[in-house]
Each structure stands twice: as C-alpha cells, then as structure tokens.
C-alpha cells in the first residue's frame, strides 16, 4: 500500500477547485469490503481517469455516485464545495449537473435519435404539446456544435457503434447543462467504460467530443480498462485496488508500465492452490479458424485433461469463444474437431454440440443456465432426461434418486432437491449447474465465468470439480476475467485483444499477476 503512495506524483499545478470531493467512502457487501475508506477529488475542468481490475471497486464507486448504492456511514461527498447528503438523491444529481453514460449506453435502438435524446425530459416533465419540429432543430444545432452529424429522425438501430456512443454522451452532457441549478455548478460527466466495443479510430472521434465538453467547462470522470486511452485523454487518474485507492497521479508523469504495476499490485499469489503442471496429453479437440462476433481468427489445439483459460479485457472477445464453439451464437466460419469428427461451426446448433460431447455452462445462471421457478430436481435432470429413464415413460422416482445423489456428490446445500432452483444461493446454484452437466461426462467443457457471484467455499468446490473432470480426461475451456481463478486452475491461459490471441501463458509462468499484466499490456 504505502509503497504506491510514493508513486503518486503531485498534481501538476494544484487543481484550482475540486468539482467533486469524496472522503472516507466505504461499502460492505455481506462482510466483503467493496470499498474501503476511499477518498478522491476531481478538479474543475479536468478529465479524471478511474482505473482498476474487476472487483477493485470502480463500479461500486460509480453506483454510489449515481445513488444506486448507499455507502456505509462515515463517508462524505462534496460537489461544488457543498456537502451532498448520502445516499445521493436524484434531485442532487440534477441540481449539481452530474450525468452518467454507462457502458451499455441506455439507448433504445428501435426509437429515433431525437426520441432517445429527449428521454430524460420525457421521464421527468409532463409535456402536453411537444413541438417535434422545434426539438429536431434544437437537436441538429446541438449536434453541429459538437461536430457530430446525426439525423434526429433516424432510428438509433441504424447508427454505427461510435455514433451511438456520441449520442449517449451528448445526451448526458446536454441534460446536465440544462438541469444544473446550483450556483457555480459546472457539471460533471461520468463516462463508465464507453469505449471497449469501439475500434481505435472511433475512439479518437469520441475523445474529440470529450475534449469539447471539457472546453465548455465541465469535468469528466473517465472509467476505463484501457491504459493507453487513459494516458491520452486524462490529466489525472486514480487507481483502485481491492477497494482501496492504490494511488492518484498526474497522467503526464506516468508511463504504462508503472500504471500496470499500480493496478495489479504486488500480490502474493495463492500459488499453493495451483496443481503442479502436468505433461500434455494427446490431442483431444481442436478449434480451427474460428471467426464470428469480435473474434477475427482463433485456432487452438486442445489436449485431453487440459484446462485452458481464455481471458482479456472487456470487449476483447475472449468470452465469445465458448458460445461460438457451442453453436449458441452462430459463427461466421471455423471448424471444431472433436472425437475424430470435424464440425462446421457456422451451422452448429447447441443440440448437435451436446451430441458431439460438448457442454456449456453460461455465466448468466438465472437467465440461461437454469429455470429458477422449477425445482433443482427438474433442472439437474434436464441434461439426462432420456438416459435416466426411457423417453416415453419417465421414471420420476429415478429422476428424484438421481437428483438426490447429485446433491450429495456435488455438495449442493440445502440437501433438498425438491427446492426451487431460485431458492439456492449463488454458489449452490453454480454447483447444481456443474452437477447437471458434469454427470454426462462430456469431452469438451465450455465454461463462462464459473465462479462469478460464488462464495469462497463453493468456489473451491467448483475448482475441484473442474480439476476432477480434467483428471478423468475432459478438456476444459474456461472464459474468465478473474485472474486469480485462471491462475489457480489453468494449464494454459490465452490472452485476447481485439479478437485475436496476443499472448499465451503456460505452465509455471501462470500467476494472477502475470495474467493481469498481459491483459493490461494488450490494451
């Protein structure tokens, strides 16, 4: 901790007046310190970067600012030198001109640019005679002022990704300008990862817009994973690590390597959890020339018993591989070789993938993994309905028996398979999903964030289930942004950037910090 503070360069020319200042902000989630006594100040007219790994507390901080979370008692927040009571009320946001653009932008694609632009007004003001012609004119003038060229009457679905981001940012900025009422309020725009899905040259267009906004006197908080972007656009930046401020620095005085170091930290890895590297088995599966979604070209030889991690920063496409390889999302091209068969990925369906020996455990447990309003018995048996009993005469007693033995074997608690799936905790839901699929002894296991929202105990159990399956010869592809998890279970980790693998970390070189560094270098 202390070591990093020395890396904190003094702000170049003490900032005149902080627009936003927060001190001693903490937030606990069931005993986990998401934020631990965080203090931060944003100077008037600056773009302030906010960096940190997943789980470092960035999003919790943003959600406290937007009033979504109430912080623990003891924290204080000042905007424009006036103390704002916590939790932040929506009126306070409007009065002080705080406005947010989240990663998913909050646009409705089927509505027009103009309707999307006016959505905040329509939400709070009862207008009974909207003059659409005048509003369209005002929109055109607004766009022209920031040198973006959008037709107010075009549906948002026809805009390119960068145009959508521009629209969302201009909308947020326009809104804060029109609503701030507090004396001397200059406004603060919070951009929460607006860039990960944009190609590099589009990011420049977005940055021109951000600079124009700052020139108009408004400050910006820029949340990003991308260190190059932070170096380019921000004047100062703060790094969060494990819920604490690891350091604040003037960007001009820092280089990429030092920033990565600050983000990743000097972690003592839990290397003890790592099994010794095993010799690679015979080739069991291969993916060749996979294209689709963000993925431009991916090939990999996979051996039996191997656990391969897929990772990268958000938007790099690492999390798309497993859905493409399962036929859950249609690929453009590529083949999957499994059990001596070559399968065209462009035409693969999940049903055929399962028949070939693949399984997929999606990260969206409640939406795509299981039906929460049905029982654990019904959910875990879905994968084996025809096998446990005959298709035209389900032996319900056998299904109940099977569920009971799975609950035992995978330690799903409470030990009552008649419970609704949704009544289980996150960790037990995940164990139930693992039970559902691992009982089929698949050849290729495709896992997406297998321990997201899972408590520590269940996490270890998930790891050992994966290790056991690998021991029995299965090949595991695991997409995750949890570097510690990858460090603990993988024989190889493939790091993605912009749709291609840019680095392979294998064997004893694998560690949480090595993976994290590779990811941040890639940006």
């Amino acid at each position: 901790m202390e070591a990093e503070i020395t890396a904190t360069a003094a702000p170049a020319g003490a900032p005149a007046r902080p627009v936003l200042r927060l001190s001693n902000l903490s937030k606990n989630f069931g005993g986990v310190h998401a934020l631990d006594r965080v203090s931060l100040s944003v100077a008037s007219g600056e773009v302030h970067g906010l960096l940190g790994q997943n789980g470092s507390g960035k999003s919790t901080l943003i959600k406290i600012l937007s009033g979504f979370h109430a912080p623990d008692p003891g924290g204080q927040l000042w905007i424009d030198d006036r103390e704002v009571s916590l939790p932040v009320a929506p009126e306070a946001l409007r009065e002080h001109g705080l406005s947010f653009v989240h990663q998913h932008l909050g646009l409705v694609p089927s509505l027009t640019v103009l309707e999307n632009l006016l959505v905040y007004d329509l939400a709070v003001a009862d207008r009974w005679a909207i003059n659409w012609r005048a509003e369209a004119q005002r929109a055109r003038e607004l766009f022209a002022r920031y040198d973006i060229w959008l037709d107010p009457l075009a549906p948002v679905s026809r805009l390119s990704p960068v145009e959508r981001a521009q629209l969302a940012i201009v909308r947020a900025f326009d809104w804060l300008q029109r609503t701030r009422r507090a004396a001397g309020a200059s406004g603060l725009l919070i951009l929460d990862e607006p860039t990960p899905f944009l190609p590099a040259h589009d990011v420049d267009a977005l940055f021109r817009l951000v600079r124009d906004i700052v020139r108009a006197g408004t400050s910006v908080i820029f949340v990003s994973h991308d260190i190059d972007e932070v170096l380019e656009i921000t004047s100062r930046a703060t790094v969060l690590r494990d819920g604490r401020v690891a350091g604040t620095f003037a960007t001009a005085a820092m280089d990429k390597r030092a920033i990565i170091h600050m983000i990743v930290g000097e972690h003592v890895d839990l290397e003890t959890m790592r099994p010794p590297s095993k010799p690679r088995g015979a080739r069991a599966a291969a993916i060749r020339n996979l294209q689709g979604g963000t993925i431009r070209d991916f090939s990999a030889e996979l051996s039996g018993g191997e656990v391969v991690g897929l990772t990268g920063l958000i938007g790099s496409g690492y999390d798309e591989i497993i859905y493409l390889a399962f036929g859950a999302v249609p690929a453009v091209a590529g083949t999957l070789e499994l059990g001596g068969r070559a399968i065209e990925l462009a035409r693969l369906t999940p049903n055929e993938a399962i028949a070939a020996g693949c399984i997929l455990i999606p990260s969206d447990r409640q939406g795509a993994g299981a039906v929460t309003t049905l029982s654990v018995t019904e959910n875990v048996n879905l994968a084996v309905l025809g096998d446990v009993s005959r298709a035209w005469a389900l032996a319900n007693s056998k299904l109940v028996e099977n569920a009971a033995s799975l609950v035992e074997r995978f330690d799903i608690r409470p030990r009552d398979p008649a419970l609704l799936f949704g009544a289980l905790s996150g960790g037990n839901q995940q164990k139930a999903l693992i039970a559902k699929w691992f009982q089929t002894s698949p050849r290729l296991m495709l896992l997406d964030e297998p321990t997201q929202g899972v408590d520590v105990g269940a996490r270890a159990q998930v790891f050992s289930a994966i290790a056991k399956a690998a021991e029995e010869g299965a090949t595991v592809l695991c997409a995750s942004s949890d570097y510690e998890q990858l460090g603990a279970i993988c024989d190889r980790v493939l790091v993605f950037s912009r749709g291609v693998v840019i680095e392979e970390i294998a064997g004893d070189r694998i560690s949480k910090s090595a993976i994290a560094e590779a990811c941040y270098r890639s940006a």
Partner: protein
Amino acid sequence: MSVKSALDKPAASPPALAVSEWLERFALVLVWAAIIVVFGVLRPESFLTWSNFSTILGSQAVIVILALGLVVPLTSGDYDLSIASNLTLAGTVLALLNARWGVPIAWSILAALAAGALVGFVNGFFVIYFRINSLIVTLGVGTFIHGITLWLGNQQTISGVSEGLVTAVIVTRLFGVPLGFYYALVLCAAIWYVLSYTALGRRMLFVGRGREVARLSGIRVDRIRWGCLVASGVIGGMAGVIYVGTTAAADPSSGLTFLLPAFAAAFLGATTVNPGRFNPWGAMISVYFLVTGITGLSILGVSTFVQDLFYGGALVIAVTLSQIVRGREERLT
C-alpha cells in the same frame, strides 16, 4: 457481485407446509363442493338431480377439450387464440364433406382434424419462422379462418350430419353420462401423461419457462413450440368434431364464444392440482367448476348475463391468482 443468501428465504416447517400445500392444491375442488352444497340446499329438486349433473358433464365436453388444447401451447409458452375458430372450421369442414358431399363420416372426421393441424402449422410457421408473438399471429389467423369458415358454409348452419357421430358423442351413455365426456377424459389423461411422465413433457415445460436455458441444454426449442401449436390445432379440430356430434349440425359462429371459457379454465386450472403450472386436470376441473356456478345461478333464476360475468371474472381472477403464485416463487429467487 450478487451475494445471495439462502437465509433470506422463509424456511417453512415441513408439516405446516404439507397442509397448506394440500389446501392450495385442492382449494378449487373444495370451493366447487361448497357451491354444489349451497345450490343443492337452495334448489334440491332441480339442481341436485343426476340428470342435471350428467347434462353438465356431457354438454361441457367441448369446452373441456378446448381448454386441454390450450394447456399444450401455454406450457411451452405460446398462446393459441385461434383455437375456437379452429373448432368452427373443423365443424364446417366435417359437415360439408359428410352432409353435403356424402363423404363417409370417418374420412370427414380425419379431414376436420387435418384442417385443424394445418391451421396449427400455419400459426407455427409465422411464430417460429418470423419470430412474431403468438398472441398476435393466432389472433389474426383465428379471424382469418373464421372468414374462411363463413365463406365455406355460406354463413349458414349445415345440418344433416351422420347420426353415427351424434350417437357416438351424445346419445350413447355410460353410467348415464354421454360418451363425449369420456373422450375429454381420455384426452385429459393423455395430456397429463405426456406432461408428467415423458421427456417431451419436461422439455415443453423448460421451453415455456426458460427458452434460452432450454436452447443451451440442447432442446430443439423451435420444433417443440411449433409442435405444440400443431397439437393445439388438432385438439381444436377434435373439439369441432365433438361439437358437431352434440348438435348434429355445424354452426359457423356459435363455437367462437367458447374461447373465453376455455382460457378462463386453463388459467384457473393452473392454480389448482399442480399450482403454478398449466395442467390438464386443473383445466378440466375448472371448466366444471365454472359451469356449476353458472348452472346453479340460472336455476336460481338469474339472467343469462351471469355467464359473461362469471367467465370474464374468472379469467381475470385466475390470472391474478397465478400471478400471486408466481410472484411468491420469484420472491424466493
């Protein structure tokens, strides 16, 4: 990070749960028994007669079959608002072929069922192929085929259908109840078996509750949804055949009024026997529950508008009740 705790859930003690669960399952049956007792006390001479009950059981077979037909696509998450028009179309096809053109009754029945299957296939085509909401597709297709029915039958009731059909549906009685009731009973048992004891039934349930979960579990979601719509088409055709059997004629429009009672029964049925799930026994019981109330009230001398009040009210109350059951399940998650 969503930290969910199993401790948030109310842990009902097992014995109390068993009693309340039993009550919930059979509440409708108890209420049904209660209204029979009430009407029986008020009008013992006309209500509490076997002929009254056997009439009720036999005459409602058509609505029971329609409600059972709805249970199938509702389980897999789709509506079929065309099912009543399907009934009138099948009836008209049957009567035209048999009474007008002298086609043997067996072939006429097959043709009527085939017409129902075709309508279901067309519904499925638009729902699956173009990803249109089934509510809209079946509403439109239903109205469209009603137009075809009117055109085919020249907007008139076609009478003179083979006596054999009438005999087989309404004249022949077993334990004093017309055979039509037993056809509905057999269909109910068949659907119950498929939903409870086959892999297909379990897959339908998953398709209805979580389409993405089903798809990622390797279920051919489109095929199941399409198949269910074809099944409800065939069952609608079956209802048409039985309807012609009870009246010996095909009326092009009166069958349409069965749509609402059938929906009311399907939804009310989802609150009983197996609460929270569309189920055939619940649907069947609900039909008779509703008609008992209506018959009783009309024996008491209440005007015919009570029918609309009863069916309309029952549909809304049934949906509200199942929402409450759902809501309680969702609060658990």
